[in-house]
């Protein structure tokens, strides 16, 4: 019973969408509109769920004194601060519980929430991903080695594209005569992107689209139930 009703709900919502796509007449469009609007509200609760379980797991780590538990206190403190600032004075144009907080904003140069966003969240987030530049460099030296025919093909294309997307490329190959202009690096790069790359990516798209149809069909018909979890 506990899994029959959810299966039925998934089926009904799927069918409403499918029918509305092919029958433009009322009332199907209205059903679809209602469903998609509900979707937005339910998914915002899902976000709440995600964030609260994160906090729950942090609390658990602190109370169990898990390794590095002290750092999780920092998680909670920064979470609390950002949350409280946001709720009290809002962010950007959005007013909070205490209004726009003009006085504080004047002293700080921005609302507290925005201040934290700009000077803490932004640098943290963008630096985190810039670490990857270093790993690419290290991998370039140690792992990008010519081996099999296939991987050589990959590496050679990569080299052409990397060169072709720099400002040097134009200079390097401008000596190639106009009749063979398509061999100039920037144009060769464009050619690779526009034709062979498009072909392969298109093959991936088409196969993946078939995969999506298969998976969606299984979900709507209730053949696939793994998303309900713990049903085994």
């Amino acid at each position: 019973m506990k899994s029959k009703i959810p299966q039925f709900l998934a089926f009904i919502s799927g069918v409403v969408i499918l029918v509305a796509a092919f029958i433009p007449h009322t009332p199907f469009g209205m059903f679809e509109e209602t469903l998609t609007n509900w979707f937005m509200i339910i998914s915002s609760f899902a976000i709440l769920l995600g964030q609260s379980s994160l906090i729950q797991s942090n609390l658990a780590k602190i109370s169990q004194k898990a390794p590095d538990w002290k750092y999780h206190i920092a998680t909670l403190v920064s979470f609390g601060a950002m949350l409280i600032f946001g709720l009290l004075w809002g962010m950007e144009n959005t007013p909070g519980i205490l209004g726009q907080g003009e006085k504080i904003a004047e002293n700080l140069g921005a609302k507290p929430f925005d201040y934290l966003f700009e000077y803490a969240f932004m640098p943290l987030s963008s630096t985190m991903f810039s670490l990857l530049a270093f790993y690419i460099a290290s991998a370039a030296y140690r792992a990008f080695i010519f081996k099999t025919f296939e991987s050589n093909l990959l590496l050679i294309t990569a080299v052409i594209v990397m060169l072709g997307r720099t400002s040097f490329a134009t200079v390097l190959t401008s000596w190639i005569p106009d009749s063979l202009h398509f061999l100039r690096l920037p144009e060769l790069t464009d050619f690779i992107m526009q034709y062979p790359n498009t072909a392969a990516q298109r093959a991936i798209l088409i196969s993946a689209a078939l995969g999506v149809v298969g998976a969606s069909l299984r979900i709507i018909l209730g053949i696939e139930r793994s998303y309900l979890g713990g049903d085994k």
Partner: protein
Amino acid sequence: MKNLHLILLFLLIGIFAFATSEGTETYTAEDAPWDDGTAVLHRWNLSAKWEFLSLQKADSLGVYQEIFNEFSPSGQFKETGLNPDTKYQYRLVAYNKERSDSTSLFSETTTQQQWFAMNKLPLLILLVIVCSSVLYYILSARKGKELFIRRISGLDSIDEAIGRATEKGKPILFVPGISDLGDIQTIAALNILNQVAMKSAEYGTEILVPCRFSMVMSAARETVKDGYLKAGKPDAYKEDNIFYVTDDQFGFVAGVDGIMLRELPAANFFLGAFWAESLILAETGFTTGAIQTAGTGQPHQLPFFVVSCDYTLIGEELYAASAYLSRDPQQLGSLKGQDFGKLLTIILILAGIIAEIAGLGWFKNFFEGVF
């Protein structure tokens, strides 16, 4: 004499042409076809003497309000956001620069809701075909029909890699991706893990499985245990070899990196969902000299795996490998159904190109929903 005839002919044609262009100065407003009755299609054909136009709609008081004013001698404009089943009156005013001369054309239409979106017919037909084939194969697989799937070349490496690890007396490392259990890639990885665990139990080689989520860890423990059981060596199973590292993405990678550099596993398997860390894992594994097998459905990460691993399962090969090994009717049937769709695609593309070359435009138009 001949010349005169020619001149006369040209004159006649000229007058005729002028007359037709003058005579067919048209404007129509029609209910847009196959929709929910919220749009009107305006079409016009004006003579060359006009330079501006103003398309106007009568409001509730009967006063015309401009809704569109981009000039083109013949063109169309789709007005949206209307109410269904309502009568609308329009006026098209065309004029020249000084507004010294103008003409007005009138039209009216009633918006209608349709019962079927005809332009989506090709979508419906092909969708029904693909869905039926998926269902057909799932049902046949459930009935126990033998469905053939080719062996995936990346899987051939399993024996070789485990053999090498046994020779060297080093462990095997298996990372089931960094997604949680909800991701099908993780499930596929665990299906393959089952096979790898079985083989490593047969060879008597240790297998290490670091996990990013506790849910994945418990599932992986079950899977490995089952593999050892199948190999008839349940006693050799060590629960502690399947362990949780940390939730954090880079922290997890640093942890696995450390394991690779310390334990020097002779065979690495990176199967499942990977993001930016694919590169770091594959690089470290490469430098330790392990035989590496990788596979993921994340297309962006495949390049790094292909370059630094010995075998790579590309995209869907991961799911196919999982279906191949697990023989789960759902996965198998679905895969076969999709295979049918791929065959159909190839045939349609080939037929379409032949039709295009032969000048039969309707074939391609069909896919674009234009009949």
